């Protein structure tokens, strides 16, 4: 019987914010490519049924990990669990994040702090933890989910774009610091993505923005996941410190 090679075969991955949208699509694509997937969500039990069926469908291992990414202790326990079970972590996908839409004058500082806590501080803490395992392996790929608004900026999303700008900067710095240990760090900057949640917001508030997308359509979550597969795989072993736009040529 002919066997089909899978480009993430047996790679051990942690994907945060995997309960829906882009994160869920990444987890499913990784499983499809043979990865051993640790899928994170906050709500206890929320991934159980999906994980069982996803693992069965793709003949791999999909393990839910329930923790709030802003809880440093729980994040550490999650990393220890993966290390104990698999002895390694090959890919970290920092996807968990908050999003908001408001003008500068309407920016609530407490919400801004909370957004930085989730989108930036928690991301750095997970990178710290995963990098300590990857340094020992002398191998690893960290993929941070950014946004096109972190590169271009956009009217009406100052807080969110500020956090994603920080994601881009920390990605480039970490790439330089970890390169000597053969750990690659990249970010993916999606444009507007047709997740269930965003599609609703888009239809209500931003449908005119379709004009900003040269390709004339929203991205499918799977198209963001495909870019993650590439950056997590050995097809990208010489790529680090990059902010990869997956935006259908969007220009705000």
């Amino acid at each position: 019987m002919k066997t089909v090679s899978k480009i993430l075969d047996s790679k051990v991955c942690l994907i945060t914010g995997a309960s829906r949208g882009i994160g869920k699509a990444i987890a499913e694509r990784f499983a499809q490519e043979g990865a051993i997937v640790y899928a994170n969500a906050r709500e206890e039990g929320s991934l159980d049924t999906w994980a069982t069926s996803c693992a069965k469908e793709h003949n791999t291992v999909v393990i839910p990990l329930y923790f709030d990414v802003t809880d440093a202790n729980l994040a550490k326990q999650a990393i220890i669990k993966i290390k104990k079970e698999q002895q390694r972590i090959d890919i970290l996908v920092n996807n968990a994040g908050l999003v908001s839409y408001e003008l500068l004058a309407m920016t609530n500082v407490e919400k801004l702090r909370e957004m930085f806590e989730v989108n930036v501080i928690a991301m750095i803490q997970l990178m710290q933890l995963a990098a300590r395992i990857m340094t020992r392996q002398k191998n690893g790929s960290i993929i941070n989910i950014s946004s096109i608004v972190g590169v271009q900026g956009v009217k009406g999303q100052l807080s969110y774009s500020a956090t994603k700008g920080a994601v881009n900067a920390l990605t480039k710095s970490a790439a330089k610091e970890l390169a000597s240990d053969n750990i690659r760090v990249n970010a993916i900057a999606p444009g507007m993505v047709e997740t269930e949640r965003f599609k609703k917001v888009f239809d209500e508030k931003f449908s005119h923005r379709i004009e900003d997308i040269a390709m004339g359509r929203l991205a499918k979550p799977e198209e963001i996941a495909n870019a993650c597969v590439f950056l997590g795989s050995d097809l990208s072993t010489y790529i680090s410190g990059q902010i990869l736009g997956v935006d259908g040529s969007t220009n705000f």
Partner: protein
Amino acid sequence: MNNIEKYNNIFASVFNVNVEVLNSDFNIESVDNWDSITQLTLVTELEDEFDIMFDTEDILEFKSYDKGKGIIGKYDIAL
């Protein structure tokens, strides 16, 4: 080898010194080659030896031979 011998040997290896010089005065101020690189190497070696994972705060505070003993104790390793 008991735990204190393991602890001392790792210090001696990382800082390239004899175990006899390890005492309360052995710290980041008094040891020329104690920098962030050797500190992280020390932490990694100790984590591997004792099968633990330090909190980030503990890594930052690990700045002396004595302080390290206290930190190791937090992880139920008796020295």
